[in-house]
């Protein structure tokens, strides 16, 4: 866990590595581990990256992760005023508070929700999975059609291999390596890490180096904590609400929290001029999102963000299928994840305090070395899955595919979701149709399934209604930077 938190903080602090990339790179190393240990390690990375991203945001005005971008407004201002330690301290402490709060909410929501989902049959599973795919694909990019195509492309990748019901080979091209379908890890690593490294190799953009060497984290006083309590509370509430909504993620939560904290603050005029509240709100929110993200991921098997998708991938890798039966079949994994999340949040408080100097050194790493390090790790990590060069090749090919997708506006994250949901969607759909003898009306006859089908349709047509409404009012439809996490 400590290693996970360290890796997460360092990965989060590096502007080229997001939390999800840091998690994806670590995924192959978790093979030999116990499932609970692997999950706790990944949870450590996730939590650590939440704080790590704020370090370069405060020190060099460049967020390590997209979710830390809102921290720049006041964090960098505080740094310029010579209050770097205070900004880092507030970020660390409020992030920990947010993380701990999210665990409480996770436990409070997940246990009752998992009882409800136990009543789900194949039609409900299909409807819920379809809804998850539709909502995430539609929220994740500006062009909803491309988001959906990317999501369905992911379902298509999941189809490759032996048919789960009849054992018939589908699109395997007689390749033995494809009988079991594409390995999840190389595809994930390819779409997340290789795509990003190819982009960086093409661009070779070097962010600013950290020049100061005297920064240290200062814990806030009780008075300062009281001063930011309102912003912290707002950040926590926003983080939970945004986290539970699939597809929104940490970036949106931190910006919404910043805005709301400013609106409800007694001193809104100080925002943007070095307000501690302006650091507390986004940092609390982006660490609170994690618990919210895990609610649909663990209860329904639908990840709300890239990082939650990697947590689900880790479960699948260890032979555990996420979703309603998780609590019934593997309660020990869920409960150890709960306790693990509490521990990693406390660990972050300690490690975050000690690791600052190392982070500052790591942030100054030049991009070519970062690219080299990640690509060699991708190759060896993917190779280690089956001791075969086929897997690193898959990672590289999917890296190229992800690059092309990104270039033309197709979100690779939606493809990952489709890939993760593929098995669940197909099994649920085919079992439902076997039950109904091929009649699709089964999805409209059961109330829960019907609700999710209607929600999916509404989600699909919502942008069209929005655009028609905006046209009538003569307004532009806003585009939101969504989906990171």
């Amino acid at each position, binding site marked *: 866990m400590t290693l996970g938190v360290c890796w997460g903080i360092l990965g989060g602090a590096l*502007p*080229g590595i*997001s939390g999800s990339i840091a998690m994806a790179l670590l995924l192959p190393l978790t093979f*030999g581990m116990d499932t609970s240990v692997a999950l706790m390690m990944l949870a450590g990375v996730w939590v650590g990256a939440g704080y790590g991203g704020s370090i370069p945001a405060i020190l060099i005005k460049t967020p390590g992760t*997209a979710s830390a971008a*809102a921290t*720049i*407004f006041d964090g960098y201002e505080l740094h310029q005023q010579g209050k770097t330690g205070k900004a880092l301290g507030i970020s660390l402490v409020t992030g920990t508070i947010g993380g701990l709060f999210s665990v409480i909410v996770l436990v409070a929501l997940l246990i009752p929700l998992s009882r409800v989902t136990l009543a789900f049959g194949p039609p409900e599973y299909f409807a819920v999975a379809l809804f998850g795919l539709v909502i995430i694909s539609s929220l994740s990019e*500006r*062009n*909803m*059609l*491309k988001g959906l*195509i990317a999501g*369905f492309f992911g379902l*298509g990748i999941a189809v490759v291999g032996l*048919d789960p*019901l009849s054992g018939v080979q*589908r*699109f395997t091209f007689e390749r033995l390596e494809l009988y079991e379908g594409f390995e999840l890890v190389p595809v994930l690593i390819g779409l997340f890490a290789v795509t990003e*490294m190819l*982009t*960086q190799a*093409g*661009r*070779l*953009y070097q962010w600013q180096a950290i020049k100061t060497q005297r920064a240290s984290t200062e814990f806030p006083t009780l008075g300062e904590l009281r001063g930011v309590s309102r912003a912290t509370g707002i950040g926590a509430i926003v983080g939970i609400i945004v986290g539970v909504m699939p597809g929104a993620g940490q970036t949106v939560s931190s910006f919404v929290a*910043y805005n709301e904290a400013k609106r409800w603050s007694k001193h809104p005029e100080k925002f943007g001029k070095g307000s501690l509240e302006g650091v507390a709100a986004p940092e609390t929110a982006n660490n609170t999102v994690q618990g919210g993200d895990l609610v649909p991921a663990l209860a329904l098997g639908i990840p709300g963000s890239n990082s939650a998708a990697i947590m689900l991938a880790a479960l699948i890798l260890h032979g555990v299928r996420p979703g309603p039966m998780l609590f019934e079949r593997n309660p020990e994994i869920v409960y150890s994840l709960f306790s693990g999340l509490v521990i990693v949040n406390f660990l972050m408080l300690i490690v975050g305090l000690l690791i600052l100097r190392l982070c500052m050194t790591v942030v100054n790493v*030049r991009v*070519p*070395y970062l*690219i*080299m*390090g990640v*690509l*060699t*790790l991708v*190759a060896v990590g993917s*190779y*280690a899955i089956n*001791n075969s*060069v086929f897997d*690193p*090749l898959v990672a*590289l090919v999917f890296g*190229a595919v992800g690059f092309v997708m990104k270039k*033309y*506006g197709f979100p690779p994250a939606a493809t990952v979701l489709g890939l993760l949901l593929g098995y669940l969607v197909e099994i649920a759909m*085919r079992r439902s*149709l*076997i039950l109904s003898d*091929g009649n699709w009306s089964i999805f409209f006859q059961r109330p829960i399934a019907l609700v999710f089908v209607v929600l999916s349709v509404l989600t699909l047509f919502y942008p069209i209604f929005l*655009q028609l409404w905006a046209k009538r009012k003569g307004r532009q439809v*806003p*585009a*939101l*930077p*969504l*989906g*990171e996490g």
Partner: protein
Amino acid sequence: LGDSEGVTPRTNVVISICILVTCGAAWLATSTLPRGLTVDPIGPAYFPRFIILSVAALGAALLLTSLRDLRQAPSTDSERADSEPQAPEALKIPDAAVHSELVADADELPPISYPRMLSVLGLSIVYVLVMTPLGYFISTVAYVVPLLLLLRVRNPLTISGCALGVPLVLQSLFNKLLGVPLPGGLLDRLQGVLPF
């Protein structure tokens, strides 16, 4: 139904035609799939076809909206800028060169060099292909040197340090710590021949 930056309606038309053609080819491929179980009324080809039809419908919708956008495309750059969907003021990120596709401020980042990007990809593919015959250590040394040169690193000391250090660290991590044997290749074969 806005679009990502830099993708024109004309590009979208080409993309959607490619999608429709691919769907056609994939549909033909599903016709070769056997029937499967008798208790399964829909068979193993049903779900792939469901996906293909969905993607084809979405591709057709993309084609139609792109053709509409092409007809309505503003003629001047200023008009084009006016018509692009804008993020609300609160969600704009000032001066943040974020390396994320979702929030990157494209104006601040240098353009992508495709020859360099493709060279890195090609070199990486070759590296993976020769990993088994040459062995992990030798292939990684042979990979890191040209990779760093491609990425404009010119210091011979740094290059040689990385070329030797990276494979040594990773091989030790995987072989010793994680118990995952990496391909020995040439070095394994030379072990019996060399006197050391």
